[in-house]
C-alpha cells in the first residue's frame, strides 16, 4: 500500500507543471493532514516489529519524495526570495558612458596620413605664420605677378619678423650653418612681410632646403585665405601637401600613387582624371578630378559629374633652383588637396563652417 502511494506521488510530481502544483502535492501528501502523514501517524497503533519495519520504509519514502519535490521546485523557482529584492528591469536603457569624439578633420587627416605613410611618405609640418619668401617667391610666384591673385592672403601688421622655424625630422648637414638656419635665411627674409600661409606648399621649400633627395613627404596643416565665407569657403581650412622627388619620378608615377590613395580612401570604384591647370610651382600642372560610381554618389553630385579635388603637377625647375637642387638631376611631383573638402565628401557635410563651430551636436556625429 505504501509503495503504491509512493508511485502515485512520484508520478504526480513528474507531471507537475509549476511551483503551485508541487506545493499542492506536498500539502496533499506530506502536509499536516496529508495522506502519507496520515499513514505515518497510523503506524503508532501497529505492533512494535511491524511498526519499526513499516516506519523505516515510510520514512524512506517520505525522504525520497521530499528530495524529488526539492528538485522539482528547483526547476520552476528561479529567484529565491533573497535575490528577489534585487530585481531590476533589464529592459530599461543602459547608462550612457560619456562618449567623446575626435574632430572629423582629425579622422580624415589620420586616414590620409596612414595611407601615405604605408606608401613610404613621411609626415612633416611647417609654420602657420610664413614669410613672403616661402609662401610665394621660392614657389616661383614673383611679386607683382598676376598669379599671386590665386591666393588671397592675410598679412600681419607692424614691422615684425618671424622667429626662425626649423622643420622637424632628421636634417641633412649640407645646408646647415652654425646658427642652425638654412643658408641665406636672413637675407631672404629681410624686408619681406609676414603672412598667414595661404597653402601648405611652403613646407616643400622648407623640407627640401634641409633634406637631400630622393624624398617623399606629405605635409598636412592649417591654411588661411582672405575671402568672404560661405558654405564652401572659410577663412581657414586644412590642406595636405604632397611631394615626391627622385631621379625619374614622372606623371605616370603621380597617377599611380594618387590612384592608389583614392582607392584606399574612397573605395575601389573610384575614378580619377587629370586635366591641365596652372600653378606657378609646377610644370606641367594639373587639376585632379574624381568620379564615384552611381551607387556611392556624393551628396549634391550630379550623375557623372567630376569633382575637383586637388591641384598638382611636376615640380617646377625654378623651385628646385630655389632650394639648391640641380633641376637637371632631379624631378618629381607635388600636390595639394583640401582636407575639409575631403571630409565634406566623405561625410556628406554641406557647410565647411561647421568644422570650426565647436558645436557638439555636430561633432558628436563622428
Amino acid at each position: 500500500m505504501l509503495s503504491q502511494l509512493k508511485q502515485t506521488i512520484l508520478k504526480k510530481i513528474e507531471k507537475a507543471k509549476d511551483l503551485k502544483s508541487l506545493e499542492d502535492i506536498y500539502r496533499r501528501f506530506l502536509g499536516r493532514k496529508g495522506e502519507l502523514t496520515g499513514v505515518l501517524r497510523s503506524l503508532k497503533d501497529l505492533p512494535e516489529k511491524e511498526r519499526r519495519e513499516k516506519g523505516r520504509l515510510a520514512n524512506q519514502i517520505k525522504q525520497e519524495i521530499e528530495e524529488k519535490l526539492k528538485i522539482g521546485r528547483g526547476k520552476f523557482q528561479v529567484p529565491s526570495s533573497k535575490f528577489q529584492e534585487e530585481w531590476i528591469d533589464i529592459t530599461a536603457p543602459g547608462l550612457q558612458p560619456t562618449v567623446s569624439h575626435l574632430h572629423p578633420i582629425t579622422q580624415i587627416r589620420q586616414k590620409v596620413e596612414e595611407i601615405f605613410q604605408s606608401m613610404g611618405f613621411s609626415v612633416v609640418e611647417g609654420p602657420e605664420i610664413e614669410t613672403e619668401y616661402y609662401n610665394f617667391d621660392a614657389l616661383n610666384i614673383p611679386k607683382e605677378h598676376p598669379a599671386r591673385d590665386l591666393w588671397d592672403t592675410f598679412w600681419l601688421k607692424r614691422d615684425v619678423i618671424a622667429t626662425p622655424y626649423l622643420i622637424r625630422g632628421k636634417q641633412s648637414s649640407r645646408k646647415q650653418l652654425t646658427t642652425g638656419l638654412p643658408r641665406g635665411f636672413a637675407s631672404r627674409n629681410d624686408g619681406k612681410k609676414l603672412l598667414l600661409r595661404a597653402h601648405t606648399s611652403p613646407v616643400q621649400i622648407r623640407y627640401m632646403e634641409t633634406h637631400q633627395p630622393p624624398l617623399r613627404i606629405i605635409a598636412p596643416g592649417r591654411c588661411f585665405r582672405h575671402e568672404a565665407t560661405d558654405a564652401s569657403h572659410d577663412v581657414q581650412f586644412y590642406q595636405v601637401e604632397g611631394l615626391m622627388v627622385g631621379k625619374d619620378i614622372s606623371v605616370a608615377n603621380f597617377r599611380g600613387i594618387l590612384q592608389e590613395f583614392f582607392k584606399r580612401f574612397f573605395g575601389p570604384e573610384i575614378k580619377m582624371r587629370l586635366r591641365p591647370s596652372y600653378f606657378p610651382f609646377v610644370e606641367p600642372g594639373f587639376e585632379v578630378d574624381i568620379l564615384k560610381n552611381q551607387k556611392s554618389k556624393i551628396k549634391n553630385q550630379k550623375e557623372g559629374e567630376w569633382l575637383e579635388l586637388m591641384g598638382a603637377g611636376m615640380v617646377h625647375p625654378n623651385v628646385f633652383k630655389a632650394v639648391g637642387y640641380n633641376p637637371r638631376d632631379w624631378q618629381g611631383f607635388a600636390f595639394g588637396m583640401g582636407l575639409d573638402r575631403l571630409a565634406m565628401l566623405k561625410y556628406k557635410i554641406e557647410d565647411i563652417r561647421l568644422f570650426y563651430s565647436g558645436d557638439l551636436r555636430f561633432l558628436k556625429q563622428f
Partner: protein
Amino acid sequence: MKVSYNWLQSFLKNKLPAPEKLAEILTMSVFEVGEIKKVGRDRVLDIDVLPNRAHDCLSHWGVAREVAAITGNWSSSIGAVLKKNCSNGAAPIKVEVKNKDLCPRYCARVITDIKVGPSPKWLKERLEVIGQKSINNIVDAANYVMFETGQPLHAFDMDKVGGSPRRGLPPRIIIRRAKKGEKIITLENEKYELNSDILVIADTKEPLAIAGIKGGKKAEIDQGTKDIILEAANFNPQNIRQVSKKLGLRTESSLRFEAGLDANLASEAIDRAADLIQKIAGGEIVPGLIDVYPKKIRPKKIKLEVEKVKRLLGVEIPKKDIIKILESLSFKIQDTKYKILNTIIPTWRLDITLPEDLIEEIGRLFGYEKIPAQLPSAALIPPERNDSLVYENKIREILVSAGLSEVYNYSFISEKDIITRPVLVELENPVSREQKYLRPSLMPNLLKNIKDNLRFFNEVGLFEIGKVFKTEDKRQKTEVSEEKKLAGVFALKIKSEGTREFYQLKGVVDSLLNKLRISDVWYDDANNKQQTTNNKQFYHSARRAEIKVGDDLVGWLGEISPEILERLDIKPRVVGFEIDFEKLVALATEEREYLPPSKYPAVVRDIAVLVEPSARVEEVLNLIETAGGPLVQDVDLFDMYEGENIPDGKKNLAFHIVYQAEDRTLTDKEVNDLHAKIVWTLENEGGWEVRK
C-alpha cells in the same frame, strides 16, 4: 572669360564641335569651361583662362588657336590687312616715349574724317553676347579688336590733343611718368590724383589717359569727333599691375596688360582696328604707322631633349607625334632628325621659356588621360617617424577616452576676447573686427564653445590642439612666434557646490601625463611668481595650479576666474588647462629606465589623518614619504572627507601606504616600526591627529 561660339567659329574652317563637346575638349586639353549660356542665336562659353595664359588667350583669336591645335582646324589670320596700302607715309602726329622700360612699344595710326555713330547690328550683337555695352562705332571697334586679338586699344579725338599750334607743329603724344600732384578725369568722370609711379599718355599740357588702364575725358571721342588717333601699345606688366591696384582701377585693358602681352601684337591689332573703323565709320587711314619699338622682340629658341619628354611624363610618345603637336601650336622645329629638337617659339607664347613648358604642351595635347598609372619603382624608404604627430594622435586618443571631445576653433580672436593682455599679433587686413588678432591662447575660443554647448548639454568637456601666436621684442626687433598648445575645458550645466569640476579635469590631466609615461609631475599653486601674471589673472586665485614636471613648467590648470566668466556671461564654473605641446612631446619621448617590479610581497597599511581644512594633501604625503624612507613604495590618497563624524574645522585624509623592499620580504616588526614612525612624525612634526 566669356567667349562667343559664333565668333570663335569665324576663325576656323571646319565646323566646331557642339558647344558642350567643345567645352569638354577645352577642359581636358587647355582651360576649364564653366557655364554655357544661350544668348540669341549664339552660345557663350565661360572659359577659365588662368594667369599663365592670360597674355595670349584672353581673346577669341587666342582660344581659336587652341581649338585649332586640338582639333587640327585653322583658317584665317587677322593682321596684315593694311600692310599693302598704309605702311608708308609721313606721320601727321609726333609720338615721344620718355620711359621705354615702362612702354616697350607704342603704335599709333591716324584716321581722318570719320563719322561717329551707332555701331552696326552685327558688332553690337557680338559685344552684347559677351556682356559688353555698345557705346559708339569707334569705341566699339577698339573694344571689339581687344576681345578679338587680346590687344587693348584706345582712340583719342585728335582735335583735342594739344601740340604746338603756334609754331605750326602737329599734335604730340608723350608717354611719360605723371608728375606728383597731376590729376586726370577719366571717361567715367572720376578724378584721380597721380604720381610718378604712374605712366600716362599725355599731350604737351596734361595727361590724356592712364597708360594701359583708363582713358581720360579730355580727348574723349564724341559725336563731333572727326579725326582720331588710334593707339595700340605695350606696357610693363608689373607697373600696370601696381598702378591698377593702387588706384583701385581694374579694367579689361589693365587685366590684359598686367598679364604681359606680345609686343608684336600691337601693330597687327592696330591695323585690324583701323580697317574695321574705316569699314564702319568711314574716313581715311593716313598712311604711315607710327611705331616706337626700339627693342624688337624675336622668337626664342628652346632645345628639347626627346628623351626628357618620356622621363617627365612617364610615357613613350613617338617623336613624330611630339613634332606634330608642337607644330600644331605654331612652334617650329629647325631640324627634326636630332634627338634634341631645336624649337622656335612664337613670340605670343610668353609662357614658354623652358623645356618643361614644352613638355606640358606635349602632355596636355597628347592627353594626360593616356598616361598610364604606374607606381614608382624606387626603393621604398621607410617613412621618418614624426614624434610630434605620433604623440598628437596618442594624446587625442587619451583625451577622448577620458571624456573630452575634440574641437577645431578659428585661429583668430576679436578685441573683445582679449582676456589678458599678452603681446598680440595683429592682422593688417582682417576680414572683420571679430577676427582681427591671432589667438594668443586656445582658451578664449574654448570658453565660447563651453557657453554655446551648455545650452544643449548638461556636461561639456572639450579639448583642442593648435597653434597660438605672440610677439616679443628682441634686439630692437619685434619677433612673432607660434607655439603648439594643448588645452581642455570642462563644465557642468548645474554648477557644483564645490570642487568636482576641478578634480575631474585634474584627473584627466593626471591620467594624460601618466599614460604618456611622464613622471615627476607635481602641481604648484604658484602664488608668488612674477612672470605668470597673465595666467594668474585668467584663473581663480585660489583654484589654479602650475603643472610642473621636475623644474619645468609645462602648463596651467585651474578654474577660470569668476570675473572672466561673468564677462563672457557664463554662469557655471569652468575649469581649464593649457599645456605646452612641444614640451609635452619632449618629456614623453625622453628615455626612461625600466624598473623591474620587486619579487617580494608588499604590505599595505591604511592611515587616516585629521588635518585643518587648509592643509594640503601634498604636505601630508611629503611627511609620510620622508618618514617612511625607501621602503615606502607608494602612498595613495583614497579618501578626503569633511562633515559627519569628523570634528568641526577638520578634514579627514585617508591613505594606503604600500611597504615593500627590493631584496627581501619585510617582517611584521619592520613594517610595524616604520608605520609607527610615520604616525609619530605626522603627529609630532605635522601636528595632526592620526585616527587610530
